[in-house]
């Protein structure tokens, strides 16, 4: 799905220190990969490079998708990008307005489907974003991104501004969606627990802009959900390993 090879990027002129250096990464379908690291190590920069918001100086970013007409990337930000001058329904119709959705019927059908999945009431459609709670807004912004039918979802600390309960619910809902719809997701977070609960793999990013270690998480449960794995013994084990690695990276 996503293949990155030897990617390097700097915000400064040629010769300035690299923010991202010789970074390689691949994310497959049906996979959720998290990136953990100290503040300012280049996690969000990497997402911006993948999304095309920044241009890398060297290296390759490839997104494989057989159907070229499909939207490849959906980006879910920490602060939702919902337009305050439109109600939720009109915000969700953005993909249609931009000619990226097949029809109004398709949009309506998927809104209904996603509203069920994310436990949102239909009345929310007529409300303006500023009338919604933080959790609702983030749900709506995830749905907005999904209505572009992206194959790869980039998430930059999407649940960090939410209360713990809402966060747990959204993690489960999002996890199910990625797995059911065979999408791929790359999550950037500061929250180790969230990363372990959500991911199939965790990458630790060092201060020099490359990955220092990788953890493959195998909870081996049939009904794996972020909320259920939190109570497993393996969860604490992974937490210990990742935390010690992260401490070493931050201390560098």
């Amino acid at each position, binding site marked *: 799905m996503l293949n990155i090879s030897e990617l390097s990027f700097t915000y400064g002129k040629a010769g300035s220190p690299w923010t991202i250096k010789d970074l390689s990464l691949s994310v497959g379908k049906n996979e959720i990969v998290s990136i953990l690291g100290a503040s300012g190590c280049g996690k969000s920069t990497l997402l911006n490079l993948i999304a095309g*918001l920044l241009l890398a100086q060297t290296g390759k970013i490839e997104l494989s998708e057989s159907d070229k007409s499909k939207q490849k990337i959906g980006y879910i930000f920490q602060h*939702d*990008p919902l337009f305050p001058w439109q109600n939720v329904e009109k915000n969700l119709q*953005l993909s249609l307005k*931009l000619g990226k959705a097949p029809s109004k019927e398709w949009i309506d059908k998927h809104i209904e489907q996603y509203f069920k999945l994310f436990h949102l009431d239909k009345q929310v459609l007529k409300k303006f974003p500023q009338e919604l709670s933080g959790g609702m807004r983030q749900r709506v912004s995830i749905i907005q991104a999904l209505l572009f039918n992206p194959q790869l979802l980039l998430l930059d600390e999407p649940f960090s501004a939410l209360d713990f309960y809402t966060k747990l619910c959204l993690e489960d809902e999002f996890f199910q969606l990625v797995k059911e719809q065979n999408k791929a997701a790359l999550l950037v977070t500061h929250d180790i627990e969230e990363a372990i609960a959500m991911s199939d793999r965790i990458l630790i990013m060092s201060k020099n802009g490359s990955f220092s270690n990788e953890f493959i998480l195998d909870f081996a449960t049939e009904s794996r959900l972020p909320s259920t794995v939190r109570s497993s013994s393996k969860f604490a084990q992974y937490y210990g390993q990742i935390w010690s690695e992260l401490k070493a990276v931050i201390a560098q």
Partner: protein
Amino acid sequence: MKLLFLYPLPLIIFIAIWHFLTVGQPDRQFIFSSPSQVLNTCFSLLKSGELVHQTGVTVFEALCGFIFGTVIGSFLGLSMWYSRTVAKIAKPYITAIATIPIFALAPIIIVWFGIGILSKVMLAFLSTVTVSIVQSYQGAMSVEPRFLRLMKVVGASRWQTFKHVVIPSSLIWVINAMKLSIGLALLGAFIGEFISAEEGLGYMIVKASGLYDMSTVLTGVIALAAIALFLTGIVDQIEKRLLKQ
């Protein structure tokens, strides 16, 4: 509800003081007129149709200048979002035009466009257009980065971003410009009438002040204040409609 009763209170107090200071004092009435004289003049000018005519002319000039100035100014200001180079080149010119007092331009405009309505519309337009350009450009440049980032990620074209994000996001700036401009448009039209005209409230005031007819002058001033309130009310309605959320 209580406030509704309080609104006319300052006006009532002012009229009462004015009345007590001028009643039975012809020399004071010559300089300050009096509430009863102004009321009489107002009725007689209304009866003759002169007040309605002169007010109509000033409203027409100010509104035409305001509408053209706002539409053209907002269009130019928002369009400058498209090209930073054009915006950079245009900026000093706009600043220069915006800082020239309309009084300095009025004689030139009257020479170019005559002493009729057109020169007053032009003066109202010039008073309005620069404010609209500056405000709408500022609005277009102040669009929240998260909205622009979203449009870029989903592959929206520049036109789509302009249409779906820049214009609606700048609307509040355009409306604020309208609030500022409405008074400026009235001022522009009035200055034009004041300098050289054959009709309008400015003309009526200048003519009456030359004859020391203070009642007519004050009637003109009251009519101007009423127009300002009326036009501001229209802008408030437009704001309510456009920003209905």
